[in-house]
């Protein structure tokens, strides 16, 4: 495949959606405009969060040796590794999509699948800064009930995810993580 063709293929879904939006602009200008406005609003939010996340990713990749990550969160790290992964996710904030690139560096550094899913689960649901805010908005009882129930389900989910991921798929996930920084 030529370079151009390959690039076109990568951006196919984006172009398709762009066409949909263009059609929308013609058919229902108000809706189309609103949709684009929403996309731009989201874009600015993403643009504020993306640079530091990827910068940290690159720095982490270069400076933290694989052995260290494996020791703390690898397959042999046991419960301590799980607690560590969970704490890292819980202390974070920001949208879930920012957790994926972080998780891929973890994978690249040999962190176990279980711990990666714990990290993602914690990032998505049991973020400590968010919980404080939830308490002020929805009350202590509601926030704590949700927190502890979700804590249990995150752990359960991480185990299910790990157990149901076959060797081949798991291999593919690790390879995918390693390929994230390669050229096309």
């Amino acid at each position, binding site marked *: 495949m030529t370079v151009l063709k390959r690039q076109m293929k*990568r*951006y196919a*879904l*984006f172009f398709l*959606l*762009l066409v*949909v*939006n263009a059609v929308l602009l013609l058919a229902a200008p108000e809706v189309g405009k*609103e*949709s*684009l*406005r*929403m*996309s*731009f609003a*989201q874009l600015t939010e993403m643009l504020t969060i*993306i*640079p*530091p996340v*990827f*910068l940290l*990713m*690159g*720095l982490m*990749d*270069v*400076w933290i040796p694989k052995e260290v990550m494996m020791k703390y969160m690898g397959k042999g790290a046991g419960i301590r590794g799980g607690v560590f992964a969970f704490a890292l996710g819980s202390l*974070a*904030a920001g*949208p*879930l*999509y920012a957790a*994926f*690139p972080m*998780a*891929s560096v973890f994978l690249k550094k040999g962190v176990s699948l279980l711990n990666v899913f714990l990290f993602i689960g914690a990032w*998505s*649901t049991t973020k400590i*800064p*968010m919980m404080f805010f*939830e308490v002020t*908005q*929805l009350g202590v*009882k*509601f926030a704590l009930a*949700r927190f502890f*129930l*979700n804590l*249990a*389900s995150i752990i*359960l*989910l991480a185990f*299910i*995810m790990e157990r149901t991921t076959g060797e081949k*798929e798991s291999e593919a*996930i690790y390879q995918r993580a390693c390929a*994230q*920084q390669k*050229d*096309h």
Partner: protein
Amino acid sequence: MFTKILYAGAFVWLLLSFLKDREKTKTALKKAWKSFENILPSVLAVLLLIGFVLTVLDPDLISKAIGSDSGLFGLLLAAVIGCITLIPGFIAFPLAASLLRAGAGYTQIAVFVSTLMMVGVATLPLEMQYFGKRAALKRNALSLGAAVITSLMVGVIMK
């Protein structure tokens, strides 16, 4: 607040890295850029998807849909809305609070908040790129199940 800490952390680390080893820093920056460029197509697609979703589902519509006596239908709707929208917590919690005051059930609100956080249909293309189709779909499906079950329990607790 968190974003500021993130920026501070990234820049301090970058500065230290630069002072210690320029070559390594260059590699880090290159890797950062490549990782970003790698997901750029998905990010752009996700942005447009979010635009569509948020246009159709504005907060007004959401309040009406899972309001006071929406019952099981409201629960399912709350789950669907939570799954496909991408609302940051600092907007979602006040919205949830106002919905509660307007008479929405605790179960519906819990399901809305939980799916909002754990399930991301709009960001699926991005997640698939990192974890593959199967794992990404599985994680979202399991999370949806967990959100519904825990929310029903929250509803009982709050009674």
